[in-house]
């Protein structure tokens, strides 16, 4: 048996669209517009094993959604090959649909005016499940996702958190082997986010469902995904275990200095140390350990400031990801 759920080889997607040329008249622009081509995804390759939890991240316009749409059969690639559970999405769209589930955070797939139970039943029928099996699966999902308090409510009356739980439940009705989620926690409060992440972990554990997720929320990545693929300008720039992400910027250390009384002056710092934030109570500095080591930095900082407390730590994941995005932007 192939250990991989997803195999992507040299995948590219180009879009072209007409652009207005201000130096020519509107007639020429109307009938003979110039076209601009953009490469949304540029020759990417990766594979995902069964049961893996992948964060596919990148800044806006990086190519995340385009990739996920090609993997699910929504978009046709310009070049390259995709193999999802043995199917080519461009040729076996219908067969593949029986094996995957999808959740697009910004787009609902539920029937707005009918009770949630009707939407779940609708998806069961769409996946050709027998009536008995649909009922059994709905009961399982209601229990798993704690939907019982609003299962009879019309979908348009649900809160965003309830709706997202319902969306994920609907996408799992046919027990898909892979679930693709495009920003599933967008707009959710912290409690709803945690609940959704816990549920996704649960189905990954209990049903060995492969999770392929795009998100701008570091919490999703940190708490949910064991591997992170970073894409920018259509190119994969990092593919590593999520826990190793912070080690990517190991050459940076952060030091918090808590004031003994109040910081009144903020002198120029030695080479290799820069201010991250300045406050009368607390200063945070970033140390480039390629230029100055931590011990030396501390000595020099203590000469400059009177402090009550010191804290030395690595960059948090959000900072690391921001650095990765910024680095890849400047290198392009």
């Amino acid at each position: 048996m192939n250990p991989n759920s997803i195999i992507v080889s040299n995948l590219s997607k180009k879009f072209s669209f007409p652009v207005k040329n201000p130096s020519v008249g509107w007639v020429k622009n109307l009938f003979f517009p110039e076209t601009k081509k953009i490469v949304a995804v540029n020759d990417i390759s990766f594979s995902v094993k069964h049961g893996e939890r992948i964060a596919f991240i990148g800044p806006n316009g990086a190519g995340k959604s385009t990739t996920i749409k090609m993997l699910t059969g929504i978009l046709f690639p310009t070049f390259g090959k995709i193999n999802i559970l043995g199917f080519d999405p461009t040729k076996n769209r219908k067969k593949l649909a029986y094996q995957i589930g999808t959740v697009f955070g910004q787009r609902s797939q539920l029937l707005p005016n009918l009770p949630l139970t009707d939407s779940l039943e609708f998806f069961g029928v769409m996946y050709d499940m027998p009536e008995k099996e649909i009922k059994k699966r709905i009961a399982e999902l209601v229990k798993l996702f704690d939907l019982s308090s609003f299962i009879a409510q019309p979908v348009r009356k649900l809160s965003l958190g309830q709706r997202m739980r319902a969306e994920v439940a609907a996408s799992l009705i046919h027990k898909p082997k892979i679930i693709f989620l495009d920003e599933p926690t967008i707009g959710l409060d912290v409690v709803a986010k945690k609940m959704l992440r816990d549920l996704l972990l649960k189905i990954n554990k209990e049903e060995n469902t492969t999770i392929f997720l795009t998100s701008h929320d570091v919490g999703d990545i940190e708490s949910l995904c064991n591997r992170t693929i970073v894409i920018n300008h259509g190119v994969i720039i990092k593919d590593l275990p999520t826990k190793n992400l912070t080690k990517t910027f190991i050459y940076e250390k952060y030091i918090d200095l808590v004031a003994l009384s109040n910081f009144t002056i903020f002198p120029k710092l030695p080479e290799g140390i820069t201010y991250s934030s300045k406050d009368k109570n607390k200063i945070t500095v970033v140390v480039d350990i390629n230029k100055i080591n931590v011990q030396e930095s501390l000595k020099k900082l203590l000469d400059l400031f009177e402090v009550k407390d010191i804290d030395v730590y690595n960059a948090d994941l959000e900072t690391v990801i921001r650095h990765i995005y910024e680095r890849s932007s400047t290198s392009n």
Partner: protein
Amino acid sequence: MIKEFYFALYAIKKNIQNSAELRVSFLINIIGMSINNTAFIILWIFFVKSVGVINGWVAMDIIGLLGFGALSYGIVFSIGAGIRKLADYVATGIFDRFMLSPKNLLIRTATSFFSVSALGDIVFGVVCLVIYIISIHATIYQILLIGLLVIISVIVFLTAIITIYSMSFFFVDANLVTGSLFELFLTPSLFHGGAFQGVMRFIFTFIIPSLLIGALPVEIVRDVSLEKLLLVGSLAIFWFIISISIFNRAVKKYESSNFITFGN
């Protein structure tokens, strides 16, 4: 294929239930469309009575024409109103949902929406055809012919809207283009059949199949013309094959988008 049709019927049922949840809007839509159609038929009957017979067409033929037109319109927009929303679906990215479905794309799209007012058209179309059958003292053969021609009208109507709304994949925000093309097809289909002669008749039979909806079926019933029946039937099959092929090619142009939307 049986599973496809079972799901299509189920989706139509759910769409009706979804629309019927908004009860007032549901009833107003049906009643409104019936009043609109009645006003239209009164207008045409007055016109025919003032102008007299044009190329063999009398007032009852107009009722037959509107019967075929309204019934095929009503049936198509009851079972396939989603096709008419293709321009919106494509522009907003809602079409993604159908690409992700394990069902036939065209059937899934067609049955994704239910036009409530189409029920009013069905009722109106049936009433018109019953009046037509009674007034022309139709024989059993003619009644069977009417039944067959209703099926052909529905097929032609369906193929026309599939072809027209497939253009949604070729233009950015194709609402205007598809709306205009639909009017270009629909309006002549409701016009006095006797007005179309010579080049106009050729264009609206072979290039834009508007006359296949009502005018030619009325003439076939009136003249009991097997030649015309064969022609209309052949054109319906031809257009059906062409429209499916256009839709399947057009889908490959789909580029999706990221608008925030609600579902059905």
